[in-house]
């Protein structure tokens, strides 16, 4: 596993450029409608099941001018219809929150919808400013129990939950995302607790339940990193349904991805 890295520079250097991993111009799984998904580079979580381990290194990827990304987004406006727009995913976008604030403002000036797919790692004034320019936040809650969260990601879920609470205060829309990993995040009592915690939130439009899959495993091999969940198989249809059944008690909409 990649060692912990400081990410201060990522938020500061080259203010007009984003450090990105890759682009997907027909994103249909990262927010509503057709989306231009910018996968940014760098993440401090070390999720054992990470499907994009090549986005972790804060020094990897390449710099791309925001103006070029904006040009691409504008060229896609005819595809966005009423629902689509730009999603910044990663990696962890909040590591470049200052620059993303500029970028989201640019998008809003062109009338383009903005969406942030984040693990909620950081909550400072810059994050709060960014959230103001974020039409939809998709918050990945990796686990509700902090001990399990640390086991799964290497870090606490404390800030993630705080960020959710802050978003709730602002009254702006939010989706939750939860990856169901057999033996790791499928304990009914913890899923139940997650539901209890969020049941009164007004801003949560839906929760997406994402069954664990192994599509990213070969990337770990390419990077010469050991994949610890080798023996974990994707959840069965029944266990997905079980988890969804619990979540349906607490959320308006549960979408199985």
């Amino acid at each position, binding site marked *: 596993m990649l060692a912990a890295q400081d990410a201060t520079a990522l938020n500061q250097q080259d203010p007009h450029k984003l450090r990105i991993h890759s682009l997907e111009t027909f994103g*249909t799984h990262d927010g509503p409608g057709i989306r231009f998904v910018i996968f940014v580079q760098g993440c401090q979580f070390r999720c054992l099941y990470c499907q994009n381990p090549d986005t972790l290194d804060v020094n990897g990827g390449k710099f791309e001018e925001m103006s070029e990304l904006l040009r691409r987004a504008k060229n896609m406006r005819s595809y966005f219809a009423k629902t689509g727009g730009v999603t910044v995913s990663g990696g962890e976008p909040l590591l470049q929150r200052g620059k993303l604030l500029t970028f989201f403002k640019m998008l809003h000036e062109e009338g383009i919808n903005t969406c942030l797919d984040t693990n909620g790692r950081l909550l400072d004034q810059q994050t709060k400013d960014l959230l103001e320019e974020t039409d939809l936040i998709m918050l990945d809650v990796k686990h509700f129990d902090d001990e399990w969260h640390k086991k799964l990601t290497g870090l606490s879920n404390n800030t993630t939950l705080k960020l959710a609470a802050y978003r709730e205060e602002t009254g702006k829309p939010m989706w939750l995302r939860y990856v169901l990993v057999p033996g790791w995040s499928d304990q009914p009592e913890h899923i139940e607790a997650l539901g209890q915690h969020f049941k009164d939130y007004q801003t949560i439009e839906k929760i997406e339940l994402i069954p664990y899959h192994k599509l990213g495993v070969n990337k770990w091999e390419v990077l010469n990193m050991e994949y610890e969940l080798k023996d974990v198989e994707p959840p069965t249809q029944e266990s997905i349904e079980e988890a969804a059944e619990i979540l349906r008690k607490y959320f308006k909409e549960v979408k199985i991805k």
Partner: protein
Amino acid sequence: MAEVKELGFVEGTWVNEINPKNFVELNITPYEGDASFLAGPTEATTKLWEACMVAMKEERAKDGCRDIDTDTISSATSHKAGYIVEGLETIVGLQTDELLKRAMKPYGGYRVVENAVKERGMEVNPSVTNVFNYVKDHNNAVFSVYDKEIRTFRSKGILTGLPDNYARGRIIGDYRRLALYGTKQLIAAKTADFNNIKVEFGDIKDQIRLREEINMQISALKDIEVMAGFYGLDVTEPAKNAQEAVQWVYFAYLAAVKEQDGAAMSLGNVSSFLDIYIEAELKAGTLTESQAQEFIDHFVMKLRMVRHLRPGAYDEIFGGDPTWVTEAIGGQFNDGRTKVTKTSFRFLQTLYNLGASPEPNLTVLWSEALPQGFKEFCAQVSIDTSSVQYENDDLMRPNRGSDDYGIACCVSQQSIGKRIQFFGARTNLPKTLLLALNSGREEKDGVTCIEGIAPLTSDVLNYDEVMDRFKKAMDEVARVYAKSMNMIHYMHDHYYYEKSQFAFLDTNPGIDMAYGAAGISIIADSLSAIKFGKTTAIRNEQGLAVDFKTEGEYPEYGNDDDRVDSIAQEITHYFFNELKKHATYRNAVPTMSLLTITSNVMYGKKTGATPDGRKAGESFAPGANPMHGRDRNGAVASLNSVAKLDYNDAQDGISNTFSIVPKALGADRGDQITNLVNMMDGYFNGETEADMAHHLNVNVLNRDTLMDAYENPENYPQLTIRVSGYAVNFVRLSKAHQLEVIARTFHESM
């Protein structure tokens, strides 16, 4: 016209002149709803289709040809009645007396027909052979006027697929005319046209030719009366009800495909015309939805059974035995109403009632203003069957000046009854670039094809110098191409005139001269490599560039990058302008397509390594597609690159074939339908008018399915896939073509 009055049609100019467009405009019932009214197959439909499936299985088992009538030269009247299962068919008529028995149509080129028969281990009846000891066919005629450079360009594969040894096709009769008027009125109108041609002043030669043509058209109409008589039907009068309307339209088309074996013989835009009769009967209570669907199912079944006799070599350029019975569905009127009717839905519904199929080549004329219910049904059908293609009505309607048009062959707009096109296959642009890099010599054997192209001064390729040579090469190719086309179509008119189709056209229709170019993505990437990277030609002892090495990064077409996309635009514009400079037979108006059909595989085989890193022999991308795997930023970036090509430079069509795995379209069926609708709206509308795209083939399937079908073809008799402007039964493609399809970009990012 008492019978027509009984159906309560609104009268207009169509009553006193031949004008189905006016009839449709006055009588159509646009439909804004969803697909919930549709009916499934009747018992008779299912039985008939089972019989067709059995016959097609036999056909596949016999290497793609069930039987040939080797005794008869095919014509509208050459064969007596034939049935699938007599008594069950609501719409009758086969090309020969037996299902899937192919007929000989030798006027395009007798030798080609003879070889096709021999390849099947059969012999042409000597009495037929004897005819061609005396009669000149189209093929003989063209070659009698070809010169050395045309022959060289042809044999070296610079110009390919030219219709000089087979029928040109691409002409669409207005088959609605038979239903609306019957032969009696059509003959009267043609007779009046004949008498109006005075042959006294002006272009006497043209006038005499027209008179001769009209005479042939009238005899064709009389033949159709005889043909209908074999089935106990009388087409001298207009159709009196929905069943007759469908039947008459089919008879008009049937006569065409009995007489001609044109590469592509489209149907036109008959669905909303037929809807008027169906709607009138539904209203009168003389027809149920199930019966209406049955007429369409049986009609479509007949269209699926159309066959032509082709030699094996033909499969290289037109893989999978296509016939291009292209039917254009939907679109809008200039007045803002939609042309979508319930019968637009019924045509698509055949893909469920009879299962997926490549034919007829169902083409939706997409407009932003199409009813949402129809858009969603189209998307659903694409997701389920991969059998539909889409063309931009909002682009073609204003640009080509007609709201009553069909699609000739794959992608070419054609005003119905008013215009035709002279089909011209295509030239190989990458090969042309290699001529430019080799002082006019062919890259494989060094034969000089173009004189006067100076050698390059360095093996490290200089962009300006390459462009200079390339433009000279394009000029020369355009010159030889134009010359060939004029000869071909002059001879085709004289030796294989399409009398059955012209009988359903205005007497002196407008003509497009449809040129074509293949390999635009290779050109864009090659020139981009030369411009932005450092490309070195590696030459053999003859001094021919046999490979290229590029250092440094350069943008590739298919990623919405203007630096390279603009090269594709520029070359398209340049080459088309060069073609436009040349005189055309019958003052045809030049157009151009960026389309390959399946010849991208054959072109690849015949073309040496190119500067974009493509190795010698590797397939081209189909149509205007980016090269496989080079579009790295997802589907929309890829679509956007293609959308930038200017339709004004390629009015004959800019073909793009798009393949995506279902999951990448969205998490569930609802999302998938919505996203596909939005994607097509986005692609066709564009951010600006200049970004409006022209054509899209939509495939929604997993590569695994294709690989399994490659291994176990018997399990996939109806698996259909869009290739380049048409669809094929995957299992009827050659193995080489199957592998090329599997190798294409499948957008699968999730």
